[in-house]
């Protein structure tokens, strides 16, 4: 098999070996990392082709009161990580990736009511408007929490497109996005799944 080896000894350099098999090994120090042939690119055992696109995870770090029957943006004010500095956790609470492509976006919600929580919907807003809604939980339990999660694959143009987490709650008493400082309650995360 042909190979291109990035040498790790001696004077270093690139060592190339040619043949006519139609297969090319990409090596480092004589060890094959990946192989290219007519079917595509495959990684050697134990080696990974790690994506390096933007990824983020942010959460709400304190309770947020929500008006009944009103889609309200969750102020995700704490970041767990934000590899491309694309999430705004202080002003607009939105993810605006600067790499175009299709992003997996995930949301989790913990909601409660001081009296009766009747409905909870987790929603992704893209560029200020409803893009998609998660599972609708219509129920009539009192003094209870609801835990919801939702995911979607969303295209971003890599410049101006952004996504925000909104919730719709209905019920009686004070309605709250519950977030007692820990990140396990209400969070949004995402990563580049496929470039444009």
């Amino acid at each position, binding site marked *: 098999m042909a190979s291109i080896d990035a040498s790790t000894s001696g004077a270093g350099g690139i060592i190339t070996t040619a043949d006519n098999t139609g297969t090319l090994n990409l090596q480092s120090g004589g060890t094959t990392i990946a192989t290219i042939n007519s079917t595509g690119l495959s990684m050697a055992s134990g080696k990974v082709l790690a994506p390096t696109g933007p990824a983020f995870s942010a959460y709400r770090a304190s309770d947020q009161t929500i008006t009944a029957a009103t889609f309200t943006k969750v*102020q995700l004010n704490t970041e767990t990580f934000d590899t491309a500095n694309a999430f705004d956790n202080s002003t607009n609470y939105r993810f605006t990736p600067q790499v175009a492509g299709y992003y997996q976006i995930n949301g989790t919600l913990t909601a409660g009511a001081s009296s009766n929580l009747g*409905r909870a919907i987790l929603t992704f807003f893209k560029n*200020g*408007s409803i893009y998609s809604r998660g599972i609708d939980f219509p129920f009539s339990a009192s003094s209870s929490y609801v835990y919801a999660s939702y995911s979607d694959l969303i295209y971003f143009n890599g410049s101006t497109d952004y996504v925000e987490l909104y919730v*719709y709650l209905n019920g009686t008493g004070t309605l709250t996005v519950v977030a007692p400082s820990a990140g396990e309650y209400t969070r949004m995360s995402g990563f580049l799944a496929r470039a444009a």
Partner: protein
Amino acid sequence: MTLYEKIKSIYPQLEDKDFMTVIILQNDSDGRGDYIAKWEHPTLAKPTQEQLA
């Protein structure tokens, strides 16, 4: 009284589902408060500012 409560007082016949479909109330958590983002109810007119005041 919230915007939702004002609208419900003007149109008591509105149902819960209306506020998830043909009527969208929104709050962008930017200090400007609740507002009507969409009003596409087939028979009821969008309330005026005077009615909501």
